[in-house]
């Protein structure tokens, strides 16, 4: 894109572009237009048109440099996370389970010793109970002991699984913006040119009309005052 300005008091005709450039008029031409127009290139060579700047060909877009400072964003852990709370609870349960298991073990040993004592007594005394019944009872006791052991294993498996989850879990995070100092930021001031027109002689005929009472300007003014006083 060629941004040019007219540098000749006379209008520069660009017939091959069906265009013209006036004195101090700024215009933009694409690279394709510049390549196509020998008259434009000639005018630039002769100094009748000056190239102000060259940019990349874009359509209707502004290249406005931003003075905004992009802040650093980092991940920050928030907590205590829910996983941590779960872990604590599990530990408590483990401790309770451990105590229960301890009790269970103690209970088991107590039960066994009681059973053994009875068995001793039974051995010493003649029993009227059938041997098959005794065998069945012992078999049931054995089953219950086996079940109790299996339950202990299940608990261990469960604890293992939960531990695995905790170890592989992603901690909860959030993003925090760390503001950067704006010491080096310069706010761009907008240049508004001073334009002199003292040398110009003007002969202007304005179209003037007067609007009388038929118009509703007076009524609008009155109602606006009422609305403003109501809102105060």
């Amino acid at each position, binding site marked *: 894109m060629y941004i040019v*300005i007219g540098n000749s*008091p006379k*209008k520069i005709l660009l017939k091959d572009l069906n265009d013209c450039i*006036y*004195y*101090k*008029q*700024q215009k933009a031409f694409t690279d394709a237009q510049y390549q196509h127009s020998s008259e434009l290139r000639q005018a630039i060579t002769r100094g009748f048109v000056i190239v102000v700047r060259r940019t990349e060909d874009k359509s*209707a*877009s*502004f290249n406005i440099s931003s003075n905004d400072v992009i802040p650093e964003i980092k991940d920050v852990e928030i907590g205590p996370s829910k996983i941590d709370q779960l872990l604590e609870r599990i530990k408590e349960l483990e401790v309770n389970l451990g105590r229960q298991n301890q009790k269970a073990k103690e209970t088991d040993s107590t039960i066994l010793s009681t059973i053994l004592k009875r068995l001793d007594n039974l051995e010493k005394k003649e029993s009227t109970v059938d041997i098959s019944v005794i065998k069945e009872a012992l078999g049931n006791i054995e089953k219950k002991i086996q079940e109790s052991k299996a339950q202990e294993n299940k608990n261990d498996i469960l604890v293992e699984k939960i531990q695995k989850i905790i170890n592989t879990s992603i901690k909860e995070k959030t993003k925090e913006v760390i503001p950067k100092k704006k010491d080096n930021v310069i706010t761009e001031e*907008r240049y*508004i*040119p001073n*334009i002199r*027109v003292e*040398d*110009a*002689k*003007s*002969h*202007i*005929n*304005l*179209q*003037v*009309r*007067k*609007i*009388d*009472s038929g*118009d*509703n*300007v*007076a*009524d*609008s*003014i009155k*109602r*606006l*005052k009422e*609305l*403003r006083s109501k*809102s105060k």
Partner: protein
Amino acid sequence: MSFGLDIGTSFLVSATKDPKNDDSPVEVKSIRDAFLDVDADQSIINMLKMSNFSYIQEEDNIYIIGEPALSIANLLKREVRRPLSQGVISSGEYDAEKMLIILLKDILKKPSYENEPVFFSIPAESIDKDMDVVYHEAIFKKIIESFGYRAVSMNEAAAIVYSNCASNGFTALASSAGAGMVNTALVYQTMVGMAFSVSRSGDYIDRSAAKAVGSTATRIMSIKERGVNLLDPSEGNPKQMREREAIIVYYRNLIHYVIDTVKKEFKKEENKIELPDEIPWIISGGTAKAKNFLEFFKREFEKERNNFPIGISEIRMANDPLGDVAKGLLIAALND
């Protein structure tokens, strides 16, 4: 005196009234915002003086101003130059800025007292084109304050609500269809809830129709302003039928574009705006002066009424499509 100043792509319009006298009339001054440079020749100067044409002479340059610039440009098959393009001043157009200063000086004259207020119009940000409203506002503020006035900017479409909707509690949807753009604002009791502009308007119709029929935009503008009946393209010079048909096609295109844009923009703001059930839609601006524009607009709107997000009680034209922006600004200035 307080001033309302409508700075448009096609016209500069001012409205003024003596604030101390309620019965004083409103004076509206206007001039077409166009100029044409011609060679400085004594015969041309004599011709301009005899014809009472407005012109500016600076060194070896003559600039014909206003309506005559258009007629002579047509005669010479040239395009007029405009100080404003698509609603805003273009930075770098030094001649254009000079023209504006001279014209505004002539319109405003010297202030009657210090800090006399001038409320001037600015467009809303465009949603479909990059445009420098900040520069536009800053340069006019500087120009007006250099004359000794206190300059206050105000949205152009909101000004129409001030001048046309006193009986509606200053609540309405308003669109000002000028030459360079259509400005739209949704106003609730003078507060602007939503405002935007689109870069299609009268000039877009002229350019598009000119391209379609192989003519110039200035010629199409003349045909349009001479009178095109939007409901009947056969009305008028039979030799210009094609031009009129093309103009109507692009008018229809423009209306639907504006309606669609209002729908999209309102969707972004609807959670923040509480409106009465139905509000009027006021249409203003030079582009809306075409014959049967209101009827044409209503017909096109009815096709989309069912999925239009704002309840519209009526669509009506501004009382004075060319002067109501300036009058609305004057009303705001008198209440300042």
